[in-house]
């Protein structure tokens, strides 16, 4: 690559006016035309800020102080404006729902053209051509509500490609996508890269998923600095990822557990390219050495769901004859593609929606006649976005809300709050305003405000969405802790790692029916099930295949058991 870089940071620092410290320090980075770059880093590392600098949101929408220079296509970025930069750098934001400004696919793709005063007829022609590039030409008149996650991604991509930009910037493209759609999204990006030779920059912390297809370089950002800039093979063989709290690919973790020294000449960045000659022997003997844990005794059933059926319009069934049992102290994943009925199931269990037929029993009590408020005392629901739950300024008041609304006397409220904040690790913040908390801490406040009502079962909707590995581990360890205290936990999730590592049992939903109700290791090694429910095989499955281990499910299960033992020792 002897060409001139298309993006060049020189001794670049940036500090938001609203922040006391700079967010980026001494950035020196060159990106060349046609490269495909992945930028990784934990939450708050500055990787999104770096992206904002490239697309011009910094300094034009978010003000702050810049030191050093950033040149984009030989132009000093700070002297341009956001519109000029948007002709060079096209940005696909993480929430493809939120950035859908048009009422139809065609209109959304046309948005940039409209703003450029392109005549209506010509606009229709360009939109058709670009839509064809992403296979969306037959859906031009569809509204965003009719599209799948992948189709929304394609639309967003087309919307920035109408401008014939040089650089495509993807800001966390995998957030909010189910595993199979995420995989497709990475494939679409790769195809576009091969077809158009545009420069691609992907900002994402889900490294293994991005590495489903090749990238040229990975740039690691931590605490506002670039700490590594190297090819993927080199990076995954180093210890950088685990040091800063980014999850390395799961098969790499397995190799390390087996005592294998992962080196870059083994080409470990993809499982397909991984050289197996020094791997098979130690991996097999590690696998054989793992002991099966003793079976735990069966606890009494806390929740029995029988033939539950629900629909919004009386025709299309959102839940269709759903039956399962939950035992005391279980930790369960509910998985399936978007629209499979996962959220509806949680709403019906909490009494937000009335089921048409079927029964829900709490121990032996039929809870049909309990109101929403009364059900909340046995089944609590934690929503995905903490901002949708928090309605008070102070932590104490927020957690007290449910009790005060139930007319619990103040003198009884105080000890209960102190106890629950203690469990949630929030005791030091008891008198703090909520606005001073981080996202993860806010999440714990919402969990605390549900826990304080002492429900027997808690349902969490995507508890770890958008969290990096460090915060993910923090939240999950916390949930494991309250689970050990006897709270039964059900989690709606798209995160296959979460399902594999923390929940022994998974319920798979598809089109409102239960496809499977079995152990996570079975679900993630069953190709048919994976296909039907838009899930994704774990890489451990393919690792086992490559290492000639015949019982792949048992290999995956052994990996989980081994990790659980490790966690217990900590």
């Amino acid at each position: 690559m002897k060409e001139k870089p298309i993006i060049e940071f020189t001794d670049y620092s940036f500090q938001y006016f609203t922040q006391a410290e700079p967010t980026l320090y001494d950035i020196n980075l060159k990106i060349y035309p046609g490269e495909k770059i992945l930028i990784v880093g934990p939450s708050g590392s500055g990787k999104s800020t770096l992206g904002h600098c490239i697309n011009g949101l910094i300094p034009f929408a978010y003000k702050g102080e810049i030191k050093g220079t950033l040149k984009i296509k030989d132009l000093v970025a700070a002297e341009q404006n956001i519109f000029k930069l948007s002709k060079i750098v096209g940005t696909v934001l993480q929430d493809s729902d939120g950035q859908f400004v048009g009422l139809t696919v065609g209109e959304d793709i046309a948005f940039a053209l409209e703003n450029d005063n392109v005549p209506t007829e010509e606009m229709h022609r360009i939109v058709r051509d670009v839509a064809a590039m992403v296979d969306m030409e037959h859906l031009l008149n569809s509204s965003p509500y009719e599209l799948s996650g992948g189709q929304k991604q394609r639309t967003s991509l087309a919307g920035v490609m109408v401008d014939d930009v040089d650089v495509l910037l993807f800001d966390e493209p995998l957030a909010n996508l189910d595993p199979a759609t995420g995989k497709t999204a990475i494939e679409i990006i790769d195809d576009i890269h091969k077809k158009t030779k545009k420069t691609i920059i992907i900002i994402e912390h889900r490294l293994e998923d991005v590495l489903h297809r090749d990238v040229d370089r990975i740039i690691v950002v931590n605490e506002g600095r670039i700490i590594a800039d190297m090819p993927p093979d080199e990076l995954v063989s180093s210890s950088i990822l685990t040091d800063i709290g980014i999850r390395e690919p799961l098969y790499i973790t397995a190799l390390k557990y087996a005592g294998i020294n992962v080196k870059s000449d083994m080409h470990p960045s993809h499982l397909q390219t991984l050289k197996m000659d020094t791997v098979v022997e130690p991996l097999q003997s590690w696998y054989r050495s793992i002991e099966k844990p003793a079976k735990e005794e069966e606890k009494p059933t806390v929740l029995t769901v029988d033939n539950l059926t629900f629909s919004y319009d009386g025709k299309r069934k959102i839940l269709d004859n759903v039956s399962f049992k939950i035992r005391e102290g279980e930790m369960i994943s509910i998985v399936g593609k978007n629209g499979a009925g996962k959220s509806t199931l949680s709403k019906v269990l909490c009494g937000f929606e009335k089921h048409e037929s079927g029964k829900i029993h709490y121990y032996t009590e039929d809870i049909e006649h309990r109101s929403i408020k009364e059900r909340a005392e046995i089944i609590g629901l934690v929503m995905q976005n903490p901002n949708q739950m928090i309605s008070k300024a102070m932590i104490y008041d927020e957690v007290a809300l449910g009790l005060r609304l139930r007319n619990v006397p103040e003198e009884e409220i105080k000890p209960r709050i102190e106890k629950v904040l203690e469990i949630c690790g929030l005791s030091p913040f008891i008198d703090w305003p909520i606005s001073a908390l981080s996202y993860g801490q806010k999440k714990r406040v919402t969990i605390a405000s549900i826990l304080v009502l002492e429900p027997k079962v808690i349902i969490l909707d995507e508890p770890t969405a958008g969290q990096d590995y460090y915060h993910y581990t923090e939240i999950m360890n916390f949930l494991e802790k309250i689970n050990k205290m006897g709270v039964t936990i059900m989690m709606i999730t798209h995160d296959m790692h979460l399902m594999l590592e923390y929940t022994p049992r998974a319920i798979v939903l598809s089109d409102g029916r239960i496809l499977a109700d079995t152990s996570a290791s079975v679900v993630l090694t069953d190709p048919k099930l994976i296909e039907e429910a838009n899930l994704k095989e774990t890489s451990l499955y393919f690792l086992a295949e490559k290492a000639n281990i015949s019982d792949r499910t048992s290999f995956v299960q052994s990996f989980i058991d081994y990790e659980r033992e490790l966690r217990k020792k900590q």
Partner: protein
Amino acid sequence: MKLKLFSYNVIDTPIHRLSGLTKLICFLLLTFAVMYSYDIRFILAVMVFSLIILKVSEIKYSQIKIMIIYLLLFLATNFILTFLFSPEYGVEIYGTRHDILKIFGRYNLTLEQLLYQTTKILKYASVVPFGIIFLLTTDPSEFAASLNGVGIPYKVAYAVSLTLRYFPDIQRDYQNISQAQQARGLELSRKAKFMSRFKNSLLIIVPLIFSTLERIEYISNAMDLRGFGKLKTRTWYSKRKMTNSDYIAILVSLFVFTVSVLISVFINKSRFFNPFI
């Protein structure tokens, strides 16, 4: 079940094919025509016309059920209240008195009052279908394009269509938040006292505002990044050319409007049709 108030439905009828601007102009002309006249013969004719248009635009009863129920409720209340507050207004207008029924005290039902109130009810009942047709057959973005076409700044016009675009999302947020807060013990039903109901609704409004602000920041970034507001003008993907049927529709509405005025001026010599003299 979700309440979908402004759900524009995509089907192809002659009414849907008209441009948004045409429909706005026709709506205003027809409304004015009906509001101006108190001639029951004319109003009945317009009402039949509006029902025919409603039929042509293939709007299903299920879509407008809730609106119709509220309308009937409103009309009934209006009817009763008008009678309670001014039972003699009909006599005053028409200048004659034909008693039908003596009810109580000063409340005598007269033929004049009955005609006046029936006319008034029919006026509402014939305007509302036009409103429904306008809301349900107009593509919001196309409407924004039309507004911009008649000289309204495009940022204002776009705000209209954006509001309609995000209305369902915010409705859904509201529902989710409300359910979650009810689970925490919030009482929204009539069981609670007025003041506490007001305070309780704040518990939903606050998170709704914060999550909506989050959404707005996100959308405005997305729009900035794609060049919204760069130039003084913009073009529209969903803009429709005015066709012959647009002109015909406007002419028809203009005709109805003129008839309304002419009847008042030349035939009735007032806004009221008076059969009693």
